[in-house]
């Protein structure tokens, strides 16, 4: 696979690791947050955490849309699926996330709700065309990577006059989450240390690298936008180490083969035409953040499931034993959670971080759960 295999080359990876070991100083600590859950999975899947020098630490970030969606919003989707005549179309990831009283969309379906797994918004449109006598609702979640794909579907529905299609919009904004992490009490009081960010690659194909320049300047944190293959990540971490060593805090783009500085302007325009900012939105783990999520523009209310159906948002606290919130804030590692791998596994998840293929808990469970944490292994 071109543009994939080259970035998984073992010999080349060894060279980058050697450079990392040569350049990361032994007398200082480096704490970098990889924002994106896809990066967390690559780090775990390819065993990269074990290859890093002992002074380089990765803090796993909140960039997993399934994980950050609070229970209250999932409950609304479950409510929607139970409306008479409704087909709820959802990404497969959402099916097994436990809502209130541990009810999932999967369970709702078993009890008679019409829930369909789709690959994307395009498939949901197809379901709407094929079922003119049903109301088809697309459960739209995701960061900026996915937002324009929902916008395309909504604009298509408008064009076709497809009145039985609507979207339940839960699109969230990356810069708001970075703001929340850097401005959090935990960061200010020093419980979380982040010296730099591995910036999200696919989000940046849409928004470009410019939105990060503010963080680099205001917070004096280097940010390197990175690809998802193992060599991409190793190179990005090396670039961060170099910036720290040289006292720089700039936005650099390791993934420039896919990310232009200005992003995807066509997609940005479509997002602008389709969505407007919500005044505030609740995130799992990060709390209620101002201007951090999108909803459909008022002029598109006919396609907005929140307008069309009587669903109410009721905030629900996470399960007491679940540490998803702290894990999403970078305060804990999955292995610090009391129920990780015991009461909470991918087969019987207590929290969203164990369900999503981008969740940190799922990554730690899938790859190397028998080996302990990198720190434990180093001292063993």
């Amino acid at each position, binding site marked *: 696979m071109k543009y994939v295999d080259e970035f998984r080359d073992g010999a080349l990876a060894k060279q980058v690791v050697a*450079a990392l070991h040569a350049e990361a100083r032994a007398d200082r600590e480096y704490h970098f947050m990889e924002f994106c859950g896809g990066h967390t999975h690559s780090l775990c899947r390819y065993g990269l955490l074990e290859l890093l020098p002992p002074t380089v630490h990765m803090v796993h970030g909140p960039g997993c849309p399934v994980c950050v969606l609070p229970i209250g919003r999932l409950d609304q989707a479950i409510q929607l699926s139970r409306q008479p005549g409704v087909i709820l179309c959802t990404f497969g990831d959402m099916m097994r996330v436990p809502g209130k009283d541990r009810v999932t969309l999967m369970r709702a379906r078993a009890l008679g709700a019409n829930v369909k797994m789709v690959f994307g918004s395009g498939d949901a449109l197809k379901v709407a065309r094929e079922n003119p006598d049903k109301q088809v609702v697309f459960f739209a979640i995701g960061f900026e990577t*996915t937002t324009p794909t929902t916008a395309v579907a909504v604009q298509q529905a408008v064009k076709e006059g497809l009145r039985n299609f609507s979207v339940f919009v839960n699109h969230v904004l990356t810069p708001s989450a970075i703001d929340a992490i850097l401005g959090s009490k935990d960061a200010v009081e020093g419980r979380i240390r982040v010296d730099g960010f591995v910036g999200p690659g696919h989000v940046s194909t849409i928004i470009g690298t410019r939105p990060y320049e503010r963080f680099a300047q205001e917070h004096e944190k280097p940010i390197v936008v990175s690809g998802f293959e193992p060599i991409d990540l190793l190179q990005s971490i090396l670039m961060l180490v170099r910036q720290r060593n040289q006292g720089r805090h700039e936005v650099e783009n390791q993934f420039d*083969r896919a990310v232009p500085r200005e992003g995807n302007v066509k997609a940005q325009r479509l997002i602008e035409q389709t969505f407007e900012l919500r005044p505030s939105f609740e995130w799992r783990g990060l709390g209620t953040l101002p201007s951090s999520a999108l909803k459909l523009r008022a002029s598109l209310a006919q396609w907005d499931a929140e307008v069309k159906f009587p669903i109410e948002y009721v905030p629900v606290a996470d399960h007491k034993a679940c540490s998803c919130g702290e894990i999403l804030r970078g305060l804990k590692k999955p292995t610090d959670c009391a129920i990780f791998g015991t009461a909470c596994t991918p087969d019987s998840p207590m929290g969203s971080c164990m369900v999503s293929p981008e969740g940190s808990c799922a990554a730690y469970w899938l790859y190397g759960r028998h080996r302990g944490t990198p720190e434990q292994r180093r001292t063993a």
Partner: protein
Amino acid sequence: MCLALPARVTQVHDDGSAVVELGGVKQRISVALIDDVKEGDYLIIHVGYAISRLDPEAARQTLADLAQLKEGVTP
């Protein structure tokens, strides 16, 4: 959710869709977010949509920088 992969365009249709191929798997995707898609282009595909076009020159440069690292030169 933000999972995406680069795939090569094998056919462009005039309804705003294209067929892409990755490791022998072919799929029809939407190119509504990318202008002027041509056969042979590499696109980054996410949930059935192309979200970005891959720049072969930038990819070559990244690999060239890394190859230099191999020889112990700081790029």
